[in-house]
């Protein structure tokens, strides 16, 4: 297993380099330099001042050099400075990151809590009316825009105190009840659609496993029905669900951008949108990089969990 982890960690390096290249060069494709953006049209500067500013903005060097300097700074924890506030970007991101992560985590938990049981029930009653209703609700769940669901929640719950965060954030440590209450609806808005995905995968995977010989053997041995389903079938059926869940964590993280906006939760998504509206490119660049890195790490963790749960995966990989 150790060898497998090292190998997977090493495979991250080219991906992360690629991600940083894309982020860096795409931002530099924007017409107009950061300096022009910063100066606006109202300010006049002398030639010496312009030279000084160019040096400060790093516009006096060729782009490849700038890239390496940027990566070097990143590795030292320097993510650059906001064009609008002049503050370093990293502390702002770190302040908001926990809110986005909390939202993503809660929506993941809700999605699994809703999706897995419904998927199991649906598979046990395959092709009945209940199964059909479940599938249709699942498809509707997949078709709902998260931000619309969120907007409807805001309309419906606006009279209930504490359910709609609207700007103020209370941390879990400060007041767990209030925290969970304010995160419930936003998490549900993101998690509902994903619950549908989980439900569909659980159902399909259970249907496949339930046909297998060892499940029939377990039943024939006279084991209680519940035990066969939960211990024998679900344990194996859950594997593909884990993979899908991990690989979709990014979808939840992406969803949080829109949902934070609707519920006015002060997370990273709101910061990103604000930065986009303000054309504050150092901030945009840093946030995209942070989210993509998180996403890559979550995918790695999914692979590792999968390999831990199913030795065949890592054996195949180690033989190569």
């Amino acid at each position, binding site marked *: 297993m150790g060898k497998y982890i090292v190998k997977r960690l090493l495979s991250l390096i080219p*991906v992360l380099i690629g991600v940083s290249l*894309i982020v860096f060069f*795409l931002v530099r494709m924007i017409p107009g330099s950061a300096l022009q953006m910063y100066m606006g049209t109202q300010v006049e500067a002398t030639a010496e001042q312009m030279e000084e500013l160019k040096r400060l903005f790093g516009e006096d060097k060729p782009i490849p050099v700038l890239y390496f300097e940027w990566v070097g700074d990143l590795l030292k924890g320097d993510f650059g400075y906001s064009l609008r506030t002049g503050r370093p970007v990293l502390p702002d991101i770190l302040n908001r990151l926990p809110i986005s992560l909390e939202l993503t985590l809660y929506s993941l938990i809700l999605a699994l809590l809703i999706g897995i049981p419904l998927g199991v029930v649906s598979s046990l009653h395959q092709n009945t009316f209940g199964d059909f209703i479940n599938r249709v609700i699942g498809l509707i769940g997949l078709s709902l825009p998260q*931000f619309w669901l969120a907007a409807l929640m805001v309309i419906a719950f606006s009279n209930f105190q504490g359910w709609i965060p609207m700007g103020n954030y209370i941390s879990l440590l400060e007041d767990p009840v209030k925290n969970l209450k304010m995160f419930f609806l936003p998490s549900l808005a993101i998690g509902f659609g994903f619950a549908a995905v989980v439900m569909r995968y659980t159902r399909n995977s259970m249907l496949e496993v339930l046909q297998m010989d060892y499940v029939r053997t377990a039943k024939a041995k006279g084991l209680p029905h519940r035990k066969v389903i939960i211990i024998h079938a679900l344990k194996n059926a859950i594997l593909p669900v884990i993979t899908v869940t991990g690989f979709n964590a990014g979808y939840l993280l992406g969803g949080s951008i829109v949902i934070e906006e609707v519920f006015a939760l002060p997370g990273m998504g709101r910061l990103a*949108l604000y930065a986009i509206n303000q054309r504050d490119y150092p901030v945009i660049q840093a946030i995209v990089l942070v989210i*993509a890195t998180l996403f890559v790490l979550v995918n790695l963790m999914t692979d590792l969990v999968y390999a831990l749960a199913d030795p065949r995966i890592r054996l195949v990989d180690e033989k190569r």
Partner: protein
Amino acid sequence: MNTPRLLRNKIALAGLILIVLYLLMSVVSLFWLPFDPLAMNAEQILQAPSIGSGHLFGTDEFGRDILSRIMKGTSVSFIISVSATALGAIIGIFMGVWAGYLGGKPDNIIMRIADILFSFPSLLLAIFIMAILGEHTYNVVLAIGIVYIPQFARISRGAIIALKGNEFIRAATSNGAGRTYILTHHLLPNITAPLIVQISLSLSTAILLESALSFLGLGVQPPNPSWGNMLSSARKVMMFAPWTAVYPGLAIVLLVLGFNLLGDGLRDILDPRLRNVR
């Protein structure tokens, strides 16, 4: 594809009916709309839906008829989702097929690029591209299309690799068939099933992505109506005029549902493995 089988599958049929209804609405909107979707009317601001006034879905904060705006937005959604999917599918399939067929170095390079694009959550990538290109309808197509490229590349590559080892391909090679001939005559026709399903699902996701971008103010720009930007402007007034948010949202849900139903039905029909499960 076998048409009668498509029509016998209830799920696919339901999806097809929804899509055809929307297509009809989009065609009708080119010739006739109940009201001018752009005309503001100070006397008709935020009218609740009623049959008497003719505003079946009510009016928005500028007194514009919501039904007319939804109808007008249908074409916008169709055009964006079809062209973005086409863009992603054409480039992605081309990349994936060549990568899978050639193997070796080209495969490695193409798939590493796809891996890197995959490292961005799709909505984030689309938002990022829009932030760079600027808010414009064609940029929405470009942003969503780019998001789709790695998805199509990965699926078509997998399908080609699974197919490549088959005897009929080897037979064609030993008969002296060229690479391009084998690709176009033997490989491509045999990987259409997973691609058709993916196209149908991509059309639905494109509508969701477009509406999310427009909702965030990064997509189709007002006053041109798109379902997403209608919801965006509804946010200011939806507490006391919920119809401004409800109907555009329903328009999105039903069309996306149509494509999802069709995609699901197609998968049932085209994927023999699942057919056995049923």
